[in-house]
């Protein structure tokens, strides 16, 4: 009985829990509560993916109002995959948050932190699960507003400016999305995605269709921090508390990319976007320029958090590149990279969080001798860093392999070569951190002192995942492949 309501429970649980956190107030109690909610969501998300893989698409009519009149939650392989990813990250990070947030956030704001965290989580899950175009906007704003608040919790006063700038950019982006959805509604009279995809083809010739798509894609590109609309990202990631950085880096941009995938492939269809508008002619060069520009910026950063933030912009370029190929292999690569990058970037930011807890700084200059001072943390950093580069046996290799394969399939070997060469830039920026941490002596010797165990556990769970999925490629690749086929409408 309760099974049938899984899709809505997945959203309602964190959404209702957020105000309960404010009522509970007591720090440990709130944490324990948030932890239980995240675990329960993880359980429900895994169950949902298993169901979808077995029985196919699940459609849930909210309040019993049948689509297209009511709001529909529609779960297929693509979003079940994204839902699981967000749930895994949220559950792993809430463990990390216990000591890390205690250190970085003022004690009287803890319960508010967990409330905002759960709200953001609910919003992200909502974007992923809904089958209604306007509902995407509502959940997008739920997650964005709470993430502005989360970023502003950072200790540095620059966190406030970063949050404000993100608020302006994010709201502009979200409003662009509303304009796009409004124009789509104007043409078709429906907001249900499946219904839209049936009615839009009749409108393909009109200028309104093009304008609607333009607004929608620019809005989503801002939210996904796609180059050159990434300006808000480095500051926001740099000054936010470590947990928040890891959470946003691993989930917020990924969910926006999912929304982009959903609108381009399911709602508009590959035929309109890529054959009529030749969107790939814009997407592929932009993603390549983005990969190189952001990787080069990363090399020159003096703050590890900011370095990783620029690297995130570059990695989003790889995902976009995969989408730009418009083939099953390319999309598989993009989807796998979406999953893998979330794991490794979260692991990397958590390692930074551990160092920040002990040293109080993410400045590269303060990382001298860190290899000796925090050997376990740095080991995780190096392993996740290797994955970022794309060394074989790590997840990063798997996704790059599929991307290059997709380029070669199309016969675009210069793109394959460029994607390969760009990994060298990742070698440089990861090496800069490793060099300082392992080969530069610290000014005054300090004893070995690792971060508390909850932080270690959650960092190693994610680092372990990058290794595990690097060897067991079967699971992620198979699911991503089915998701890619679903998006392109190819039957296996």
């Amino acid at each position, binding site marked *: 009985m309760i099974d049938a309501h899984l899709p809505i429970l997945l959203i309602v649980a964190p959404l209702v829990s957020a105000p309960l956190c404010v009522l509970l107030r007591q720090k440990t109690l709130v944490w324990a509560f948030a932890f239980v909610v995240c675990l329960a969501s993880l359980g429900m998300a895994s169950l949902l993916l298993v169901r979808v893989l077995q029985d196919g698409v699940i459609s849930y009519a909210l309040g019993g109002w049948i689509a297209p009149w009511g709001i529909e939650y529609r779960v297929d392989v693509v979003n079940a995959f994204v839902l699981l990813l967000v749930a895994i990250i949220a559950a792993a990070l809430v463990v990390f948050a216990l000591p890390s947030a205690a250190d970085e956030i003022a004690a009287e704001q803890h319960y508010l932190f967990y409330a905002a965290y759960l709200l953001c989580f609910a919003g992200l899950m909502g974007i992923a699960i809904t089958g209604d175009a306007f509902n995407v906007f509502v959940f997008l704003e739920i997650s964005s507003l709470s993430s502005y608040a989360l970023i502003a919790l950072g200790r540095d*006063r*620059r966190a406030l400016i970063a949050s404000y700038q993100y608020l302006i950019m994010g709201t502009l982006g979200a*409003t662009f999305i509303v304009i796009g959805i*409004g124009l789509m509604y*104007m043409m078709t009279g429906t907001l249900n995605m499946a219904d839209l995809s049936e009615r839009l083809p009749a409108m393909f010739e009109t200028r309104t269709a093009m304008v609607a798509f333009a607004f929608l894609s620019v809005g989503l590109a801002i939210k996904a921090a796609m180059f050159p609309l990434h300006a808000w990202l480095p500051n926001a990631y740099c000054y936010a508390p470590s947990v928040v950085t890891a959470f946003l880096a691993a989930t917020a941009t990924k969910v926006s990319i999912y929304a982009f995938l959903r609108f381009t492939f399911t709602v508009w269809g590959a035929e309109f976007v890529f054959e009529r508008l030749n969107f790939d002619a814009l997407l592929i060069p932009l993603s390549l320029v983005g990969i190189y520009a952001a990787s080069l910026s990363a090399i020159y950063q003096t703050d590890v958090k900011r370095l990783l933030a620029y690297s995130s912009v570059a990695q989003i370029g790889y995902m976009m590149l995969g989408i730009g190929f418009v083939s099953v292999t390319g999309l598989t690569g993009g989807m796998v990279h979406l999953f893998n990058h979330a794991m490794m970037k979260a692991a990397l930011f958590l390692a930074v969080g551990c160092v920040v807890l002990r040293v109080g700084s993410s400045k590269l200059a303060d990382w001298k001798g860190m290899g000796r001072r925090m050997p376990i943390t740095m080991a995780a950093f190096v392993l996740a860093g290797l994955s970022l580069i794309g060394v074989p046996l790590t997840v990063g290799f798997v996704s790059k392999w599929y991307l290059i394969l997709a380029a070669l399939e199309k016969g675009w070997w210069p793109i394959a070569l460029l994607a390969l060469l760009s990994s060298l830039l990742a070698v440089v920026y990861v090496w800069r951190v490793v060099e300082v941490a392992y080969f530069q002596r610290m000014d005054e010797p300090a004893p070995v002192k690792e971060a508390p165990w909850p932080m270690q556990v959650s960092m190693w769970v994610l680092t372990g995942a990058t290794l595990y999925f690097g060897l067991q490629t079967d699971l992620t690749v198979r699911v991503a492949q089915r998701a890619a086929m679903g998006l392109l409408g190819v039957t296996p």
Partner: protein
Amino acid sequence: MTVGLFNYWACVVLMLIGLYTAIARPNLIKKLIGLGMFQVAVFLLYISMGKVSGGTPPILHTSGEAYSNPLPHVLILTAIVVGIATLSLGLALVVRIWEAYQTLEEDEIVERDHD
């Protein structure tokens, strides 16, 4: 023709003024005002498209007369709530920024961080 599209022209003009203010103005409050204008212009767009000339509200509808679909208006009710939340969060941030920097001009804030 031009008169019939008056609302849409007004939308476009308001939207551009709002967008320009939000991006180009260095004052943080003025940026928020611009953002507000931009959002309100979009509300107007939705409400304009929901208007059917001669249409009545679909309440106790029996005869075959034209009616206006209330859905766009309801959507905008949601968007207005979101707009209020955004504005209040933005203003709250501005208060905190004022406390931390004692200025609301973007260029001065950047300067003070470099000291």
